[in-house]
């Protein structure tokens, strides 16, 4: 081999080795600097591509749900025609009863850009970021219940950890408040990997199959009353002083398209949102 060609080959190998080394360093970095680096790339180089992906997801949703959206728009229009009258009546009645204003929760609506590729199971990219008021460790919910928690916040987007992530922990209780435990992703084989697990329930609190499990509000991240799942089986083989249950999740992250990011703070009474929706968390 001529000397020039050999030098070129060595240079190529050195470049490839350097790239592989940098990639390996990124892989083993601690969470915080790795998240900062990923956020930097997302906020600069990848920002136009994220916008493209967001538009594409919106287009797909618009195409697939056009008919149902038209129906919803029609019914919303009909209801809104009566809204002013009902609102003023409500204010008048609350004044008569000397009640304060209705409770309001702060939330940020966002599109969930769910990927289907490798490495996309545990996180989801949200289309709202710090500029919209999103804060780290905010709960992310959908109409059917809990989706996850905001893990990283960029200027215009954020990344949420969703419940298949083994690091996600939610303090939970049965809907009637008789049993408490911690919900995590169930590390089971095959399709069981798509289920949740309620651990650490005291032995005297036996939950019947079909019981709805909601967030307990303990820990300060997830407000009380967000549906998490429904009990489908009691797990055997756990220690004698506690019970564990297998839950069917209220929300399947791959099906999530729109979410609400709850702002930490005034979330009292949030459980009434799902209590008013008898269909949520019901077995389907």
């Amino acid at each position: 081999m001529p000397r020039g060609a050999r030098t070129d080959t060595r240079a190529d190998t050195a470049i490839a080795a350097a790239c592989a080394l940098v990639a390996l360093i990124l892989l083993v970095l601690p969470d915080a600097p790795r998240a900062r680096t990923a956020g930097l790339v997302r906020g600069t180089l990848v920002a136009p591509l994220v916008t493209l992906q967001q538009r594409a997801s919106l287009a797909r949703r618009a195409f697939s749900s056009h008919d149902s959206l038209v129906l919803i728009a029609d019914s919303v229009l009909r209801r809104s025609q009566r809204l002013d009258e009902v609102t003023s009546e409500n204010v008048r009645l609350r004044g008569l009863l000397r009640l304060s204003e209705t409770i309001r929760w702060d939330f940020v609506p966002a599109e969930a850009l769910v990927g289907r590729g490798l490495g996309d199971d545990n996180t989801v990219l949200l289309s709202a970021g710090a500029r919209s008021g999103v804060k780290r460790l905010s709960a992310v919910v959908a109409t059917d219940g809990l989706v996850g928690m905001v893990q990283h916040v960029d200027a215009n987007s954020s990344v949420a950890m969703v419940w298949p992530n083994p690091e996600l922990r939610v303090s939970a209780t049965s809907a009637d408040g008789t049993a408490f435990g911690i919900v995590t992703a169930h590390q089971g084989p095959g399709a069981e990997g798509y289920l949740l697990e309620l651990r650490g329930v005291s032995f005297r609190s036996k939950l019947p199959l079909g019981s709805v499990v909601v967030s307990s509000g303990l820990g300060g991240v997830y407000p009380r009353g967000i549906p998490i799942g429904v009990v489908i089986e009691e797990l055997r083989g756990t220690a004698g002083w506690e019970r564990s249950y297998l839950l069917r999740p209220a929300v399947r992250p791959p099906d999530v398209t729109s979410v609400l990011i709850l702002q930490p703070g005034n979330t009292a009474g949030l459980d009434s949102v799902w209590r008013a929706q008898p269909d949520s968390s019901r077995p389907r």
Partner: protein
Amino acid sequence: MSARSVSIMIVVALMMALHFTLRPVLDWRAGVDFLTIAVLVVAVRVRPGVAALVGFAVGIVADALAPESFGAGALAMTIVGFAASRLKAAFFADNVLINAVFVFVGKVAFDLIFIVAERRLGGSGLAWQLLLWTPLSAVLTALVGLFVMSVVRPTLERRRG
């Protein structure tokens, strides 16, 4: 910058745009990996070092959207790009079938390296991924890659000549 380099950059940009627009629209579990196609299209036309750099850059872009595995995509794309460029003389020929096999193997190699580097999948999840989703995705990627290569080849070859 030569006209050929500009053409290659346009092809890469187009593939990346398709990856972030067409893929979410189709929303298939075993989707077409336009990023692997982009890296392979480049890899067979540049030096191995440049192919590794392009692979690294494309991998970082993909990783940024899934920070849990940040670095795994970059590592996998670097190795696929470098290896594809080194093996182009042996594998990249005018034979259509060989080109399809080239893309198929590239996609399978990418998934394998990614899964090993990410260290998340295991047990039956790993088996499903390697025995079903990866081959399905690789077949689709190979078909689309074949189409892309047949479209871009006349342009890129003419510019080289």
